[in-house]
């Protein structure tokens, strides 16, 4: 077991420390008045500090904390003590030297040479022993020491676990529980390690993601990680539906519908109609009564009993609750992951210090290919030059004329984009009205595809127009340009979906009064999804492959087309919105989406590897994943939830098909059940009470919203307070730095005086020796 000891390096006279030589009397006013720094003293005219001064400088705690083992150990000792003491309030005042060894930590930093490294180490081991097993493991993992030392610390801190802990009076009531708790924690720890290893092995596409990250960097990787997240959401949505709705109905099929069963043609996969209409795929198949297992007549020829033949399964209730429950779980998961992502990516004061952050944090170590590495070098160099140029520009004055012109161009481009959006919306509305007026029967295949094709074409073409218009405007920051493009595309897609929702719930319900309108809506959403997938394929083919061939052969450019992250992510969000909109009317739609996402992963990966290069603009990967999840939550999921609530609460279900055919609204199934529970007896009376006072009443909603607003306000105030504290601390550190420089200069001048006086005395002595008479 080799102990690594990196002693503090002794200073050499040749290496001069560059420190500003200022006296504190003038320094404080000067440094606060000037915005930039004083010009640092160059090597030619730096004061040559003596060996002693340099030795002291090199052994200052702030310089040794990164290097010396002793400093690391004492730092982690402090942290361990703080961790252990977190529950109890620290003692204030009257803390003198006492016999308790843990209090000596206050003297550790002041007098590092007094306590040897071994003593510090033993103190650390003692503190580690008093932590719980999980805390100790976490502490050890995070220590920046070598593996051999960590192993020895662990061995030493483990030997005395059987010791009774009287000092921790908090748990003194149940001493035996300590041992039990430790065993449980160790067992859980082992189980956790095993699970983690299993999950790690199960992670799909791990090698593919590594190759993508290695060749294109973190920003392109974030698109594929988002795709994986969407897969997880869809699986979360599909499982309850499969278990409680689809599986049960498939096991107890309803009586066959009258009329001939249409033959299976290939067109069904595109239109979703025909053969697929009367299957578990769509709403219309589900029965509106309680399902009972088929009764087997008793051997003695008796009748089928009713309640005694197994539990009845109330299909309408199951359908309503499963869809509602799945949406609720998705909502909670989305909000949690959004807040988690936001918490990771937001930092107080993250807008300042952009030069330092670029230099320290911008190299992506995941990149492993030489070509990609060279591209990263180029990107960083360009970014640094842009930052330096921006800094120069900001210092120069901006003319009022130029500003006005920029604002005017911006306004014009926005107006044009909104006009294009309005035009697309009107086109979709007019076309949908046309489809209603023209007599198209439900079974006709090709004509049903007309509306989805129009919608997909508009979704594909309008972003290219936006990109063309965006070339006119010039933004200060390239990241803002990308966010503006994302915003415009999002507005277009959401407005078109809004018009379609109005068309279905407002007009189609009336037009298909005696038929199954829910089936129709489900099929429309299925068609939209399938055609969206086909158009993405075509876009990938033409946008990436053909463009690369053209640019290589005809234009003779070596540059491949860039991978458009924002556009691709918006397409994913759009597809997911379609799934959420359609889940009520076609419970197997998440399965279709899962298949589509799996295909999309492989197609996009192949196209990326063959045809594209990483985007030139620097993307902040963490900000991007936050933005993606927020976009998924706010316009997309919220819109789908609003649509679902409206369909459940306000729209009359069709009377010929589906589980709600005899009711006025889908929600009534729940109300009927609650009324039945009320009659059932006093044991379940709390449920109707909950329903009447919490669900039907509007007061709890206001209360919850008020609480949410209060929490948000508190958080904003906390962040403001933290900013203020950070400012004060920076001032304090800057003052301490000035004190430090003052002391160094003073030390230096004292040594110099001593050297000079010693030198003067030896010179005097030599002179006297040579010439004893010359006095």
């Amino acid at each position: 077991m080799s102990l690594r000891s990196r002693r503090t390096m002794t200073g050499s006279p040749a290496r001069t420390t560059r420190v500003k030589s200022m006296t504190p009397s003038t320094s404080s006013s000067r440094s606060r008045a000037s915005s930039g720094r004083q010009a640092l003293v160059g090597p030619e005219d730096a004061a040559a500090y003596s060996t002693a001064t340099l030795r002291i400088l090199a052994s200052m705690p702030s310089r040794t904390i990164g290097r010396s083992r002793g400093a690391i150990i004492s730092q982690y000792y402090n942290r361990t003590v703080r961790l252990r003491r977190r529950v109890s309030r620290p003692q204030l005042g009257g803390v003198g030297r006492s016999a308790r060894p843990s209090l000596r930590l206050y003297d550790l930093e002041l007098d590092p040479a007094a306590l040897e490294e071994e003593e510090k180490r033993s103190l650390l081991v003692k503190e580690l022993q008093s932590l719980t097993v999980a805390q100790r493991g976490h502490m050890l993992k995070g220590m920046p020491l070598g593996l051999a030392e960590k192993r020895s610390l662990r061995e030493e801190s483990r030997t005395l676990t059987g010791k009774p802990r009287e000092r921790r009076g908090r748990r003194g009531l149940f001493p035996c529980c300590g041992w039990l708790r430790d065993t449980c924690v160790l067992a859980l720890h082992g189980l956790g390690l095993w699970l983690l290893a299993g999950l790690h092995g199960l992670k799909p596409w791990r090698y593919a993601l590594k190759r993508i990250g290695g060749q294109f960097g973190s920003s392109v990787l974030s698109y594929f990680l988002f795709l994986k997240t969407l897969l997880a959401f869809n699986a979360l949505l599909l499982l309850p539906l499969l278990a409680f709705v689809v599986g049960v109905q498939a096991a107890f099929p309803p009586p066959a519908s009258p009329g001939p069963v249409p033959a299976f043609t290939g067109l069904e996969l595109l239109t979703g109609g025909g053969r697929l209409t009367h299957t578990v795929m769509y709403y219309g198949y589900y029965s509106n009564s309680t399902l009972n297992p088929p009764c087997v007549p008793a051997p003695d020829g008796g009748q089928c009993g009713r309640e005694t033949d197994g539990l009845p399964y109330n299909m309408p209730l199951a359908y309503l609750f499963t869809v509602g429950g799945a949406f609720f779980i998705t909502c909670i998961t989305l909000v949690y992951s959004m807040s988690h992502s936001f918490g990771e990516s937001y930092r107080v004061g993250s807008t300042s210090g952009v030069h330092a952050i670029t230099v320290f944090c911008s190299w992506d170590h995941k990149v492993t290919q030489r070509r990609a590495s060279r591209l990263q070098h180029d990107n960083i160099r360009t970014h640094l030059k842009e930052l330096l140029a921006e800094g120069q520009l900001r210092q120069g004055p901006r003319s009022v004329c130029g500003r006005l012109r920029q604002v005017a161009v911006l306004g014009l481009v926005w107006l044009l984009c909104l006009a294009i959006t309005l035009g697309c919306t009107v086109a979709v509305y007019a076309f949908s009205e046309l489809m209603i007026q023209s007599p198209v029967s439900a079974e006709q295949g090709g004509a049903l595809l007309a509306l989805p094709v129009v919608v997909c074409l508009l979704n594909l073409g309008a972003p290219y127009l936006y990109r063309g218009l965006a070339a006119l405007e010039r933004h200060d920051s390239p990241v803002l340009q990308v966010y503006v493009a994302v915003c415009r595309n999002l507005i277009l897609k959401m407005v078109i979906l809004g018009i379609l929702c109005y068309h279905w719930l407002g007009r189609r319900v009336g037009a298909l009064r005696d038929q199954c309108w829910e089936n129709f809506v489900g099929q429309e959403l299925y068609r939209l999804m399938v055609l969206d997938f086909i158009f993405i394929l075509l876009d990938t083919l033409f946008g990436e492959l053909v463009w690369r061939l053209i640019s290589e052969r005809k234009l003779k450019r070596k540059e491949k087309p860039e991978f458009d992250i924002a556009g691709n992510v918006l397409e994913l969000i759009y597809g997911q919105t379609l799934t959420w909109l359609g889940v009520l009317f076609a419970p197997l739609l998440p399965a279709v989406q899962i298949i589509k996402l799996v295909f999309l992963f492989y197609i996009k990966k192949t196209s990326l590897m063959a045809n594209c290069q990483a985007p030139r603009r620097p993307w902040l990967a963490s900000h991007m994943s936050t933005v993606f999840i927020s976009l998924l939550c706010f316009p997309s999921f919220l819109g789908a939830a609003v649509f679902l609530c409206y369909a459940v609460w306000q729209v009359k279900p069709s009377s010929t098909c589906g589980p709600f055919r005899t009711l006025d609204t889908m929600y009534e199934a729940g109300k009927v059940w609650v009324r039945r529970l009320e009659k059932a007896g006093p044991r379940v009376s709390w449920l109707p009470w909950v329903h009447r006072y919490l669900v039907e009443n509007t007061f709890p909603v206001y209360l919850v919203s008020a609480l949410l607003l209060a929490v948000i306000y508190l958080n904003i105030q906390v962040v403001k307070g933290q900013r203020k504290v950070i400012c004060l601390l920076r001032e304090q550190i800057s003052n301490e730095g000035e004190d430090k420089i003052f002391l160094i200069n003073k030390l230096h001048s004292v040594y110099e005086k001593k050297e000079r006086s010693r030198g003067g005395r030896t010179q005097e002595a030599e002179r006297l020796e040579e010439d004893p008479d010359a006095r």
Partner: protein
Amino acid sequence: MGGSGSRLSKELLAEYQDLTFLTKQEILLANCWLLLHPLHPSGSSRASPSTVPGTQAHRRFCELLPQEHRSTEESLHTRVSLEQILSLPELKANPFKERICRVFSTSPARDSLSFEDFLDLLSVFSDTATPDLKSHYAFRIFDFDDDGTLNREDLSQLVNCLTGPGEDTQLSASEMKQLIDNILEESDIDRDGTINLSEFQHVISRSPDFASSFKIVL
């Protein structure tokens, strides 16, 4: 895991899992890679298991090793020279590869890595390592002269590493001076002309991307 399981005992594996941020598969992969390299000193790509997809092929590679290299003790103490580590595909294109290897090396001449040093390296660069640990080691990697602070020379060497290897990719002298002045103004809080560990960690804590970019996946 037939052959490769006999190389590292279960207790040793559990201990490594407890003390580092690596999972069992990653530890075994690292072990496998390190054991292969003393046999193929040329570091040919055929020998490197990282270019072979999937863990099945890795296991087959491990089983090809001769008997004498299967003892645990020997595998723990085998030291791999710096050139061989630098030929690892994950590090080949990294401009900081030399500094990374020197920081994690425990040999007196800082020119070779043992298996445990290699595990330390992978643990710090792994997915689940704390940002605190990563920023500590990032500071040591950027400190080119190992004096405990980042002074102007360290910073200019760092910027030259970032912008590219050739002469024509480096910034001009005035741009470099301006950049370093800006960096020191933003991050040197006590205004002594150098950036020490605490100031560095303070700058890093303001960037949420650091943890995700300071990662090497084996």
